[in-house]
């Protein structure tokens, strides 16, 4: 029974910035261990939607349930969800005044109350998984963009989240660094993590996504398996979007 409960439920979610309607009746379920790729033109509300899932943004109508907990004004619910959901940002957002290792151990120690030694061991484990254990004592400013983004992934994983959110994790990177980050995300997907990932990397979507969701102007326009979406788009908007992306690459 509990196995069947979806990891994330978005039910007719609406959000406005002032008078601008940025999310319109967004309804989507993400199953446990499902990997969803969200794509769509710039300004279509992808970031807003994904940020509503860990309540960095507050929705105004509809229901969001994450891992069985509904997102409300209740602060305890918020704490629970923030622990269960990890997030990776386009601009990395590492803490520049802390070392790589401290970036990774801060939340486990202060939020999960993990002993320092244990947190450091855990952090080193994840830094090895993202293949940069040797950088542990450096500061973020001393790393390349690709390395920083891999640290950001490791930092989120150190909280042992059940769900990982990615908001365009490779769009701030130079082309030669995109692959190292995508490889990290592929191996994370292989480990069975529930993932919602905003990205325009179609190769990545084909390789790992169970489902691709296409958003435009605040709505979910179309969704389906990557093959179906990319080879047989049903709506004109998706066709247009795909043609623009392919031309762009």
């Amino acid at each position: 029974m509990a196995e069947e409960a979806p990891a994330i439920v978005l039910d007719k979610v609406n959000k406005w910035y002032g008078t601008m309607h940025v999310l319109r009746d967004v309804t989507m379920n993400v199953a446990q261990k499902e990997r969803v790729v969200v794509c769509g033109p710039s300004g279509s509300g992808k970031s807003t939607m994904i940020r509503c899932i860990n309540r960095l943004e507050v929705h105004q109508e509809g229901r969001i349930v994450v891992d069985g907990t509904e997102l409300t004004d209740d602060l305890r619910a918020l704490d629970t969800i923030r622990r269960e959901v990890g997030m990776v940002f386009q601009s990395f957002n590492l803490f520049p005044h802390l070392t790589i290792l401290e970036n990774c151990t801060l939340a486990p120690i202060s939020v999960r109350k993990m002993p320092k030694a244990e947190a450091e061991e855990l952090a080193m484990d994840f830094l090895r998984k993202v293949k940069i254990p040797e950088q542990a004592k450096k500061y973020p400013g001393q790393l390349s963009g690709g390395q920083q983004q891999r640290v950001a992934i490791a930092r989120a994983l150190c909280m042992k989240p059940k769900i990982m959110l990615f908001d365009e994790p490779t769009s701030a990177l130079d082309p030669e660094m995109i692959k190292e980050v995508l490889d990290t995300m592929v191996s994370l997907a292989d480990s069975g993590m529930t993932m919602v990932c905003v990205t325009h990397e179609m190769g990545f979507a084909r390789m790992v996504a169970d489902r691709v969701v296409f958003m435009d102007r605040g709505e979910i326009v179309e969704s389906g398996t990557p093959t179906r979406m990319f080879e047989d788009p049903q709506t004109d908007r998706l066709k247009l979007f795909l043609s623009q992306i392919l031309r762009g690459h």
Partner: protein
Amino acid sequence: MTMPGNSAPAALHAPIDARDRPPSSVYGPVAWMRANLFNGWLSSGVTILFGYLIIRAAIGFVDWGFLNAIWTVPALPNGNPDPATCRAVRGTGACWAAVGDKWRFITFGRYPYDQQWRPGICIALFLSLYVMSAMRQFWRKELAFIWLGILTLIGVLMWGGVLGLRYVPQDEWGGLPITLILATFGLAFAFPLAVFVALGRRSTQMPAVKLICVLYVELIRGVPLVALLFMASVMLPLFLPSGMNIDKLLRAQIAIILFVGAYVAEVIRGGLQALPKGQAEAADALGLSYWQKTMRITLPQALRLVIPPLVNTFIGFFKDTSLVLIIGIFDLLTSGKTAMSDPTWQGSSTEIYIVMAIVYFGFCFAMSTYSRSVERKLDSAHNR
């Protein structure tokens, strides 16, 4: 034919190495002077004119302050110093003997003469407190206890009345210890106050707190410190219930804390404002609580950003403590001015002003040098 490159003989590189350094015509002191001081007729003329003025002033100062100066004077039969030789050189030579005679009064004010070793130790304690707080190896929790301990010790030494020390009421204190007390307590309390006000002013959850913080900052900033000091010394006693008599120094101290707090709060708020939003968001996304996020992520980075304006505020405020002169508190400047009014040393105020300026300058220069070294250290630690 071989490929040039890897196997090229070392001799080929020699002329290139020699050209690594720019020629002295574009680099070095001579080039610097040519580019900055003698760049054209007008620039050369201005340089020569100002050079002349500066040299003339320097010669005049050396003449007055050293060559023609009177360092000691003989004593009169009654034991007092005889200022006659000083009077003779008035206008052409400095009378450092006045400073030599008056330095204890300038430093300690009207504190009982035979007890002045107590404020003397207090000055040393203050200085060691500053030095310790400046050193990184002392930046840990125990430092708070050290502060508490030393400040208590200073209180005991100044007041006395225990441990066989004679009781010295506060209105007999004076000089440098008063300035250091006002500055040190002023900072120690204004800084945390400022942090809370800065955070409160940015609060989105608590509009009432935000309003109070905005009112506090705007009201205090809209009033000159002199007015605040007057209010604290003259008006406050009128509002307090009769019998409740807060000591004058404490009232001035509170006025200073409130004043500095408002300015420092705005500096800190500027730093918080300048941080990228992503820092707070990343902390939120990791599940850190508000205080964890503030204390570990946003505040440390914001403070680092505002070190220069913060030190600027501190330096300004250190000098502003001398405004307590106008409400009759006996700080360094007041005791200096009182020393000048001694009829024996009439006409020696310049010398005393110079000595006091050196003392103020020493503290301010130490602050700014230290802040620059901290900035450099933080920069090299976190960047590149």
